[in-house]
C-alpha cells in the first residue's frame, strides 16, 4: 500500500487536534486566498496550456468563484461552527440540547480536469473550514495545473495536514484502498461507482458530483435572440466541457428554424467569424477526449460549425439539427462544443423525453410563459433547475449544488460544503437533579406511570389540548 505512510502521517496530524481551533482554519483559508492572488498568472497560464482556456473564463471560474467561496467561508465560519441549540420537549426542558459540528477526520478530495482548480478548491475550502485534514488528488489529465498544485499549494498550506497527491488511474485505485473518513469525488458516473464501492469497504460516506445529459427545452413562446445567446454562452463556455452545460436542445421544428440564425448570430457575436482565432474560445482537454467528441459529429446534420483540428484539439462551436435519439450525440454526455437539437412536438413530448432518460445534473427550460416553466419543473427530476438561462444557478452559493440518481449524491457550495464535511453530533446534556421525574420511566411499570410518561414525552397534534 504505497499511500499508507502518507495517510498515517495525516491521521497523526489529525489526532494532534491541530486543525480544530478556528484560528488555525482561518489561517489556512487565508493562505489559500493568497495562493489564488499570488499565483494568478501561473493559474491562467496552466489552464491555457492544458485546454486553451480563455483567460476571462479562467479568471472567472478558477479564481473569482473560488474567492467568493473563500469569503463566504471566512465571513461565516464562526457562526457555522457554533453549537446549534435545538427545541426541547417537556422532559428535557431544563437540559442543554444542541448539535455539534465536528470534522470527520482525514478526507479525500478527487478533482476532475475541466475546471481543475475550482472543482478541487471549492470542496477543499469546505473541508478545511470544517476542520478536517485533506488528501488532495488533482486530475492527471490537466497536467500543467496538476504540477502547479503539487508544487505550489504546499508552499501555502500546512503540509502535515494537507497533502497533494499526483496519481494516475492505477495509483488512484491504490489510494482508494486506504481508509478515509469522507471522500468527495467529481467526475464520471462510472468512476463514481468504483469510488463508492471502495468507500463501502470502510463505510466511508461520500459525495459524488457526476454528470449526465442536461436537457434544454425551448418553448415556442420566447425571445429567440436572448435564448440563443444564453444557450450558446452556456454550451460553448470552456469549449462545452462543463458538467452543467446544456447538453442538448428540445424544441419544435418551427423553433429549430427560428433558433438557427439566432445561434449563428450569437456565435459570431461571441467569437467572431473564425472562432479558431478568438482568444475567448477554448480547446478540448485531452487527445482521447478530442477523438471522442469528434466522433459525435456524425449525428443529425451539421447546421453550424463542424470544423475540427486535431493538432490544436479544436472543435468549432457546432449546432447539429434534426438529431435522432439513436444518434451518437445522444448516447453519452457530450462534454464538448456541440449542441444537438432534437425536435419534439411540444412540452408534453419534451417532458416524456426527459423522464425516459437518467436524471441529469440540471434541467433547463426557456419560455416567456411561466406556466410552461412550472410544468417542466414539476414534472421532471434533476439535481438542479434553471429557467431562462444557463449555468447561472451554480454561481449562487446559497443554492445546494449536486446531482440525483446517476448524476450524483450529496450537495455542496457555500454552507453546504461545510455541512458536507461535518458530522452533526446530537448532544443532550442533562442535569443530575430532578431524579424523581425520571421515576416515570423506571420499572416496575404501571399504567399510571405510562399515562404520565406519555404526557411528558409525547408530541401532540396541535388541535388537541390536554389538561394534566
Amino acid at each position, binding site marked *: 500500500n504505497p499511500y499508507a505512510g502518507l495517510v498515517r502521517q495525516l491521521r497523526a496530524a489529525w489526532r494532534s487536534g491541530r486543525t480544530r481551533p478556528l484560528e488555525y482554519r482561518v489561517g489556512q483559508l487565508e493562505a489559500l486566498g493568497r495562493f489564488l492572488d499570488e499565483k494568478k498568472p501561473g493559474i491562467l497560464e496552466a489552464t491555457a496550456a492544458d485546454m486553451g482556456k480563455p483567460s476571462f473564463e479562467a479568471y472567472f471560474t478558477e479564481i473569482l468563484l473560488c474567492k467568493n467561496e473563500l469569503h463566504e467561508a471566512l465571513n461565516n465560519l464562526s457562526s457555522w461552527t457554533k453549537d446549534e441549540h435545538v427545541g426541547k420537549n417537556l422532559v428535557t426542558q431544563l437540559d442543554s440540547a444542541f448539535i455539534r459540528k465536528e470534522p470527520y477526520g482525514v478526507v479525500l478530495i478527487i478533482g476532475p480536469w475541466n475546471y481543475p482548480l475550482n472543482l478541487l478548491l471549492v470542496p477543499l475550502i469546505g473541508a478545511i473550514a470544517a476542520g478536517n485534514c485533506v488528501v488532495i488528488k488533482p486530475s492527471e489529465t490537466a497536467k500543467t495545473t496538476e504540477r502547479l498544485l503539487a508544487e505550489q499549494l504546499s508552499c501555502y498550506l500546512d503540509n502535515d495536514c494537507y497533502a497533494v497527491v499526483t496519481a494516475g488511474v492505477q495509483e488512484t485505485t491504490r489510494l482508494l484502498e486506504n481508509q478515509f*473518513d469522507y471522500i468527495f469525488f467529481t467526475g464520471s458516473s462510472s468512476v463514481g461507482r468504483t469510488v463508492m464501492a471502495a468507500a463501502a469497504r470502510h463505510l466511508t460516506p461520500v459525495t459524488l458530483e457526476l454528470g449526465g445529459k442536461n436537457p434544454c427545452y425551448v418553448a415556442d413562446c420566447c425571445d429567440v435572440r436572448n435564448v440563443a445567446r444564453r444557450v450558446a454562452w452556456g454550451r460553448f463556455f470552456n469549449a462545452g466541457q462543463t458538467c452543467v452545460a446544456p447538453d442538448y436542445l428540445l424544441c419544435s421544428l418551427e423553433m429549430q428554424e427560428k433558433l438557427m440564425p439566432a445561434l449563428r448570430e450569437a456565435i459570431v457575436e461571441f467569437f467572431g467569424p473564425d472562432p479558431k482565432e478568438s482568444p475567448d474560445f477554448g480547446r478540448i482537454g485531452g487527445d482521447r477526449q478530442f477523438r471522442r467528441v469528434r466522433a459525435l459529429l456524425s449525428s443529425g446534420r451539421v447546421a453550424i460549425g463542424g470544423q475540427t483540428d486535431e493538432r490544436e484539439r479544436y472543435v468549432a462551436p457546432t449546432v447539429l439539427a434534426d438529431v435522432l435519439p439513436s444518434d451518437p450525440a445522444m448516447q453519452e454526455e457530450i462534454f464538448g462544443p456541440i449542441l444537438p437539437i432534437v425536435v419534439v412536438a411540444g412540452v408534453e413530448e419534451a417532458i416524456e423525453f426527459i423522464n425516459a432518460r437518467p436524471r441529469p445534473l440540471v434541467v433547463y427550460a426557456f419560455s416567456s410563459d411561466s406556466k410552461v416553466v412550472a410544468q417542466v419543473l414539476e414534472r421532471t427530476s434533476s439535481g438542479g433547475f434553471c429557467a431562462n438561462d444557463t449555468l447561472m444557478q451554480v454561481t449562487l452559493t446559497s443554492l445546494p449544488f449536486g446531482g440525483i440518481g446517476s448524476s450524483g449524491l450529496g450537495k455542496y457550495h457555500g454552507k453546504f460544503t461545510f455541512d458536507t464535511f461535518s458530522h452533526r453530533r446530537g448532544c443532550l446534556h442533562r442535569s443530575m437533579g430532578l431524579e424523581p421525574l425520571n421515576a416515570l420511566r423506571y420499572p416496575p411499570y404501571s399504567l399510571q406511570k405510562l399515562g404520565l410518561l406519555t404526557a411528558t414525552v409525547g408530541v401532540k397534534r396541535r388541535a388537541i389540548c390536554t389538561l394534566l
Partner: protein
Amino acid sequence: MERMQQVVSRARAAFNTGRCRSLEFRIQQLKALERMVHEKEREILAAIKADLGKSGHNAYSHEIMGVLGELALVMDKLPSWAAPQPVKKNLLTMRDEAYVNFEPLGVVLIIGAWNYPFVLVMNPLIGAIAAGNAVVVKPSEVSENTAQLLADLLPQYLDQELYPVVTAGIPETTALLAQRFDHILYTGSTTVGKIVMAAAAKYLTPVTLELGGKSPCYIDKDCDLAVACRRIAWGKYMNCGQTCIAPDYILCDPSIQSRVVENIKATLLEFYGEDVKSSPDYERIVNKRHFKRILGLLEGQKIAHGGESDEATCFIAPTILTDVSPDSKVMEEEIFGPVLPILTVKNVDEAIEFINRGEKPLALYVFSNDKKLIKRVISETSSGGVTGNDVIMHYFLSTLPFGGVGNSGMGAYHGKYSFETFSHRRACLIKDLKMEGTNKIRYPPNSQKKVDWAKFFLLKRFNKGQLGLAVLTLLGLVAAVMMKVSF
C-alpha cells in the same frame, strides 16, 4: 429474484403515476398509519411480546409512543417542511426567484432491525411517506412475529402498490438489494452495512446506515453515584441490553468500582425485584444464537453480579463484570446483551485515550458534576450522539439528528431529519428573458472592463446585511443602467 423485481417495478410504476406527490395524499396515508397504531395496538404489543418477551408497558413506551409522537410531529410540520425554501441572492440574481424545492427521491428501501422491530421500521417509513416516496419495507426476519404483523397490517391501511412489505430471509434480501432504489435506509450491524453500501454503489444509491458499536460510559469520581447508576442500569438492561445505544461498558476510577456495582445492584432490586426471572418488566434474548454468543462473552470474567441463565427461555440475568481487561472477548464486539463490563482507568485522560483507540461509537455517555469535564470528553472524542449525565435520552428528542459516524453509520434521521433524508433538495433559479443587457458582461468577446464588472457583481467583499436591501437594489439598478450605456 423475479418476485423482488416485480415488487419494486410495481412500486416504481405507482410512484410514476404521481399520486404520492400531493401533500393531501401523504397526510392521508400518515393518518391511516395513526389509525392502524391505535386500532391494532393490542396485536402490535402481542407481536413484540412474542418476539422479545417484552411487557405491554415497555413495548408501548419504547415503540408505540415514539411512533405516535413522530406521526403527530410530521403531520403537523409537513406543510412547512415541504414548502419551497427561498435562498439569499446575489446582485446578479436580484430580480430572479431562487429557492430549494423539496422533492421525493422515488422508490426507497427500508430495512428494519429485530431489537425494536416496530419503531425501527415505522419511524423511517413515516419520514419516507412524508417526503412523497414509494417505500419497500423489509422488516427483520429475526423478529418474525412483528414482521408478519407488518406484512398483514400495512396493506390494510396503506396504498398497497406504493408501500409493499417484503418478508424475506438473507437470500431474498440479497435479491432485493440487487434492485435499483433511490435511497436505502438500513438499521443493523456494521458487517451487513458494508454489504448494503456495496450493493447501493452499483446504482449510485445514497444510503443511511444506522449501525452500532460499543457505546462507552465514563463515570467521573465527582458525581452522584446513586443517580448515575440508576440511569445507567435503566439504559443498559432495557430490552435485555439489546439496544443500539445502550451503554456498552463503563470506564471509571478503581476507587469507585465497588460502589458502582453496589448501586447498580440496589437499582436492579428496585426495578425487577428479588427474582428477576419472574419480573414482567424484564425481557429475553431474541434467539438461541445470540443467547449463546452473549454467554460466551462471560468466559474467564469476574462476575460481580448475575451470570445466571436459562437456555429454554433465552433468559440471561442482569450481569456486571469487574476489572475487565481491554483485550478480553467481551471488549471485542458490541455486547447487545445484559452484560455490563467495568474497566478501570486512572483518570479522564486515560478514558479519552481508550475511547479514541476504538471505532467511533453510536453513542457516548459521561457522568460528572463538572460541566467542564463533560465538555472536554465530548470535544476530544467522536460519536454519533451524546447524552451527558444520563443514557439513551438524546434518542427521544426529535430535534436532534439521530445517526452514527465512522463504523457506527452514516446519515441521520428522526423528525425533520427523516424528511430531509428521504427528500431531494433541488436547487431552482427562475429568471426571465428580459434584462439581457446585464448578461453582456459575461459574453465574449471579453475585456478587462468586463472582468472588473464581474468582480463587482460577484465578489463578496462586504456584509450585504449591513448595507440593506434597499441600497443594494439601488446599486443594482444603477449598475444595470450604466452597463446598458457602456455596452
